[in-house]
């Protein structure tokens, strides 16, 4: 399926490590916030109020601008019942939509298979991170995984001479040609050729890219710039994925947590500005999530693994505002000291799938979930 320029695009920014809800969307007028955060609470004078109840972390000024423009949806109390508080297991649940067993298919990999069952575009999904995120992994679905700078993406980057490189890659393609017989050699062949083709298509993106926007020198900003390059090149990519971390702030949460949010929000600001300047912003939304929130009471220097957290969706077509309820901080409402999730994360996925990506959500998330109003 050839994608046109205005096909909806989803960018996922994964906040790995467990982002602290209470210091991200701060219930700054709630005395229980102060009681629970003697060590890592953000003083009143520093918070960035977004309304009379909630404030952002002082490092999130660029995101507050998006809020003020009415283009940021805050999804409260996201999670699922029986939160395991393990990084991996929790992330796995977000990636596979399987809270009760170990899932084998990623939710966005399923979307890619739905969009492009015949693999006509091997860069329908482009991931910027060191390894393949499980959210994207479905056997047989190609994903372009860009680990370093996009300019160097491809097989054998150390073979640099242009002519030799072309020849070597040509030979690579022939060495990975389909074989009759052994399943594993065939599988290797397909996988190799898919990645080769993906690298071939992607290499035009940095060449076509010209921008006056200056991105900060952070890993997340470099990844977002790569996403902008591919998106602006109109190569038909529909799903982008990247991550930043680690938000696992057991110790030294201040100032670590702020530095993480500065990097993320400043990177996103540059990204959205870049897209707008090129008139490529209105078909993009960004979903930000973390595998879990953190313990309500701090541990003297940081916070331990918790349950419910916030998720964010932003973009020019997003209806900004609060969605769902901030879970109660009252001791009797906490679950093992953690905020009790009030919104199943699959509601967010379902909404994005149905209203934005225009695919049927049930086969992807498992069953029907409440549709939220942050998209039309």
């Amino acid at each position, binding site marked *: 399926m050839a994608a046109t320029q205005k096909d909806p695009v989803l960018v996922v920014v994964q906040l790995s490590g467990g982002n602290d809800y209470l210091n991200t969307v701060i219930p700054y007028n709630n005395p229980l916030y102060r009681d629970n955060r003697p060590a890592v609470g953000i003083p009143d004078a520093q918070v960035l109020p977004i309304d009379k109840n909630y404030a952002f972390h002082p490092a999130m000024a660029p995101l507050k601008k998006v809020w003020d423009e009415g283009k940021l949806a805050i999804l409260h109390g996201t999670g699922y019942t029986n939160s395991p508080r393990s990084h991996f297991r929790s992330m796995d649940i977000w990636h596979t939509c399987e809270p009760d067993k170990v899932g084998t298919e990623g939710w966005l990999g399923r979307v890619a298979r739905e969009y492009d069952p015949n693999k006509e575009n091997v860069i329908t999904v482009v991931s910027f991170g060191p390894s393949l995120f499980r959210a994207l992994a479905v056997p047989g679905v190609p994903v372009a995984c860009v*680990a370093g700078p996009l300019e160097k993406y491809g097989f054998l980057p150390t*073979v640099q001479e242009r002519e030799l490189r072309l020849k070597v890659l040509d030979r690579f393609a022939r060495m990975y040609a389909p074989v009759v017989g052994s399943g594993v050699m065939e*599988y*290797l062949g397909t996988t190799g050729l*898919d990645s080769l083709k993906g690298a071939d298509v992607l290499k035009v993106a940095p060449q076509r890219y010209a921008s006056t926007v200056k991105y900060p020198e952070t890993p997340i900003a470099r990844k977002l710039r790569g996403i902008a390059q591919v998106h602006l090149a109109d190569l038909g990519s529909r799903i982008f994925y990247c991550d930043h971390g680690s938000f*696992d702030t057991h110790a030294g949460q201040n100032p670590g947590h702020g530095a993480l949010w500065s990097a993320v929000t400043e990177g996103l600001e540059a990204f959205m500005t870049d897209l707008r300047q090129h008139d490529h912003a209105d078909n993009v939304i960004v979903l930000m999530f973390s595998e879990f929130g953190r313990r309500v009471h701090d541990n003297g220097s940081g916070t331990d693994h918790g349950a419910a957290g916030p998720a964010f969706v932003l973009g020019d077509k997003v209806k900004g505002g609060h969605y769902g309820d901030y879970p109660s901080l009252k001791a009797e409402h906490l679950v093992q000291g953690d905020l009790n999730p009030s919104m199943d994360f699959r509601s967010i996925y379902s909404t994005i799938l149905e209203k934005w990506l225009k695919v049927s959500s049930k086969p992807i998330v498992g069953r029907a979930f409440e549709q939220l109003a942050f998209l039309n």
Partner: protein
Amino acid sequence: MAYQDDIALMAHLMRRAGFGARRDELEARVAKGYEATVEELIHPETQPPVDVYTLLRYHPAALLPGGQPPMGNVNYMYHLVNTKRPLEEKVALFWHHVFATGNSKVDNYDQLLLQINLFRERGMGDYRALLVELARNPTMLFWLDNNENHGTAVNENWGRELLELFSLGVGSYTEKDVREASRAFTGWTFETKIPRLPYGRFPWKFEYRAEDHDDGEKEFLGHRGRFNGEDIINIVVEQPACARFVCRHLYNFFVADEPQVPAWSIESPSDPKAIDTLTATFRESHYDIRSVLRVLFNSSFFKNARFQHMKSPAEVVVGSLRLVGGYEMPRPGYGDLSMQPSYMGQDLLNPPSVEGWHTGQEWINSGSLMARINFVAQLVGDPSLPGVRAIIDRLKAKGTLSPEQLVDGCLDLLGPVEVGADTRRELVDQAKEWGQISWDREVSAQTADKRVGEMLQLIVATREYQFA
């Protein structure tokens, strides 16, 4: 020709029982003999241990690496790259695959490294004793919640996985057996942890709390008694299912790729006779892993299983680093280096779940394939690395090389690697573009070095090279 066969067989043994070996080592081992090499490998105590003080001099943080990567990985990678007891490390990695314990929950690389050390020290001995040690291992107790397993409130996590994933496999026990096994392990916990602040982490210690143990009668796998944990293990290891399960794991890891573990209850082994042979040894030797490995490595089913195993990311990374050399000392960039297996889908000391990693073909996806090829290519393309230099020098000693000689020489010295006819034709066609290469003059020598590096890169990019 016979000598070349010996080299190829020894290379196979060293890839499987270790992480590969350079040509000079293979030659020395062939001179020593195959069976003698197997004996040396299964008796690691005959070789010196890794000098951990060199690591600590450069990376003091690798001693107690805490909960954040990569210092725990640096410590582990340093051992893998430097060990002179390759099978000891390989067996430790094997048990890490089976008794998969991860930092995602443990949040403590100090403890995970201690567990790997347990596998080094006990991994080739009595499997029954290893299970008992595992049941007392505080890292495992925490990982599988046995500290929450109380006489008054049973937690089945450890009890279940002991039977399902560590000894018998699905289908060889009932839900009641899980319950009863779990009851028997009530009271097996660790000492109350000393808070991390202000002095840092303290090692975890096993503790048996008799007052928290359910001392009542249990009925387990047809036996009845007031069983404690060790009694359960004694019953478990006598089950025929246990011998089959452990030996199939050994076969899958050391001989040839089997279907994924969860399928074992429905899919029979690809070589049932081999499993029977191993199983018989396991029982006769009273669960002695060393005896089983001796039979395994000397068997014809092992010797005939060349390139029937997809290299795991750990094998890719460690094997390459040992081949090219230059990474024996910790050096800048070791942190990122030690994370390379995770970029290819195997985060050491942090498996995805207690089920461990899916192996074989499932190591490969479009991202991981590119990551592994590029990592290895970058190393073998660097003639400043001693192992690459050694390959070049051996080729150089042959004088002027025709395109075929270049290809065959490189294939030989990288393994020997066996490639299909189509692959070889592509390699030779590329070499033909370069014509003959020689080192007789300084200018041509530089070009020849470069061509060898490029040929090595092309070879490690082949499908065939992904197998061991």
